[in-house]
């Protein structure tokens, strides 16, 4: 009798008990296997391919580092990296600043805040393809803004960045910022709302003006949010593909090529799986260079909290 009570509940019924213990593992294992194969397996596969002679089809014949050498000699790759630098810096910088300004303005407890917040957040709900297409129409000299101004009678108005190979990359920045700053705003707004009211009161008794309170007391508290928005935006920037394809198709010429569009066209349209793979590996390394320190610091912070 007593030994029956001592037994753990799960071992009681034969099959049912066994299921109770092993069900979580059974449920999780397919996802684990799929993730293992399709994410990590293909990372390894792609990395391997970048050292082979693969052209139209993947081959396993070892070629050494020559695809990587070819990649770095390719002027389009060079342009893609330059574009990524311009796009990444401007996109992250402007989206952060615009998001922060919007958040500070919304934080003044204005009326209709809920509506305004939703309006700013909506672009994030769109896919980059939609954003790109909409902005393509708006920026098209014959269709959008320029035509509108001409119709209003402002004949000298000119805004043709999208067809200008020196300026086209900035239109990608405009569309990207439009899409993402609402999201950044929402993150900062949550952060601003979490700041203890009494700290702000203390600062105002200490004689700090409103801008100084924001600058010296509140913004420093937003550090974790700056960091997470940087991480989110930077990996969006590095992966950027659909926005460019929908907006400019990488053109004019290859003036708005980004590493992701370069990788796609090498691999799937120019029969250079080796070079495409090499560029994909470079992108992975760049993302990892940003994500690994971030995750590391996050984990460390969490451990610190638990102590």
């Amino acid at each position, binding site marked *: 009798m007593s030994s029956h009570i001592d037994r753990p509940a799960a071992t009681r019924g034969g099959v049912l008990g066994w299921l109770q213990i092993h069900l979580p593992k059974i449920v999780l294992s397919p996802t684990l296997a799929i993730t293992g194969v399709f994410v990590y397996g293909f990372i390894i596969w792609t990395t391997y391919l970048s050292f082979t002679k693969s052209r139209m089809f993947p081959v396993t014949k070892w070629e050494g580092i020559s695809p990587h050498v070819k990649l770095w000699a390719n002027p389009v790759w060079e342009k893609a990296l330059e574009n990524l630098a311009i796009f990444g810096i401007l996109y992250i910088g402007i989206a952060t600043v615009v998001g922060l300004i919007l958040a500070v303005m919304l934080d003044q407890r204005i009326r209709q805040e809920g509506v305004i917040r939703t309006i700013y957040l909506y672009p994030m709900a769109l896919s980059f393809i939609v954003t790109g297409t909409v902005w393509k129409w708006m920026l098209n000299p014959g269709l959008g803004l320029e035509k509108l101004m001409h119709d209003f009678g402002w004949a000298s108005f000119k805004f043709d960045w999208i067809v200008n190979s020196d300026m086209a990359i900035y239109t990608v920045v405009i569309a990207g910022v439009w899409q993402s700053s609402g999201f950044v705003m929402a993150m900062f707004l949550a952060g601003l709302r979490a700041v203890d009211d009494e*700290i702000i*009161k203390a*600062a105002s008794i200490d*004689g700090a003006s409103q801008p100084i309170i924001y600058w*010296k007391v509140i913004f420093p*508290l937003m550090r974790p949010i700056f960091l997470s928005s940087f991480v989110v935006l930077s990996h969006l920037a590095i992966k950027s593909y659909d926005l460019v394809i929908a907006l400019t198709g990488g053109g004019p010429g290859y003036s708005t090529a980004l590493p992701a569009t370069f990788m796609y066209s090498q691999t799937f349209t120019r029969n250079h799986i080796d070079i495409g793979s090499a560029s994909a590996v470079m992108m992975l390394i760049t993302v990892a260079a940003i994500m690994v320190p971030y995750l590391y610091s996050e984990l460390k912070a969490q451990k610190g909290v638990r102590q």
Partner: protein
Amino acid sequence: MASLQVNNVIKRFGDVEVLKGIDIDAQDGEFLVLVGPSGCGKSTLLNMIAGLDSITDGEVLIDGKVVNAVHPKDRDIAMVFQSYALYPNMTVEKNMAFGMEMRKIPKAERDKAVMSVAKLLQIEELLKRKPGQLSGGQRQRVAMGRALVRDPKIFLFDEPLSNLDAKLRVEMRTEIKKLHRRLGTTIVYVTHDQIEAMTLATRIAVMKDGILQQFATPQEIYDRPANVFVAGFMGSPPMNLIPAKIAKNGDGLSVEIATADERTLRLKLNGTGKGLSAHVGSDVLLGLRPEAITDLESSDSGGDIQEVECSVEVTEPTGPDMLAVLLLGGIEVVSRMRSSANVHMGEMTKFAVNMSKAVFFDTETEERI
């Protein structure tokens, strides 16, 4: 140093009236304690004195000047918050110097002020740390330090000790009292702890539901509470309130308490009964502090002592003294006596009641008679 007056101050949030006409007048150097249950409007009143919240109606005067429209930073006040409100991104030193930095006081002078206050509060070794690396008690000191470096006209404290454990709270209470004696600055101190109020204050303002119940010295509030609420709120255990009747007894008056077995217990009113002649025949509440009911040996030497026999329901030794729950008339009352008192549970015993300490409340209005 400065005087502080609050004249008929009203605060409304939308339709809700949170403060309903508060009048307070604190002298220069006074330690004024605002006390009351949660939500009675203490913090709101303090915020209005500080200028952090607008005043719906009425006036706040500092040093005789109306400051309703003066910005908090120009009121020359310093405040310690319940959450301490330290700037998490700055070191202790920077926290303390921030107010002076904003006032463009030269660095050398700032450093000197911070050092001397740090020495006073014994937080010198914490100056380079951030608030996150401090214990609760240390944070509390830093918050005080931040207020002290400013040398303001008035200090405002909003429940500065409520986040500390019991032992530290008692220690800091003493420190604050010492500090006040040393600096002599006017202090307004919010708490909902009646012991803090009693020990610290030169005068106490008891509030309830946005109404000032009584504004007097701690002793006055303890001995002669203005109404039933104050009697119950101040003092632990609270004052015993016994339903009774005033009756004529020859030349003088007496108070009659109905007992459970339909007899009446009669206590003569000698000195205390003066204002009560108008209430002959009416119901009142007799208020007696626990220490006004004792065993016969330890009865107060002076005063109007009368004996009653009660049954002892429970005894609760607390260490220094003993609390006993007695059945006096029909209801339970608490008495406090020496721990060596010869009182046992379940026995009928004679007790001494000090009637010169008794107060009476009108049953209807609950005000003191």
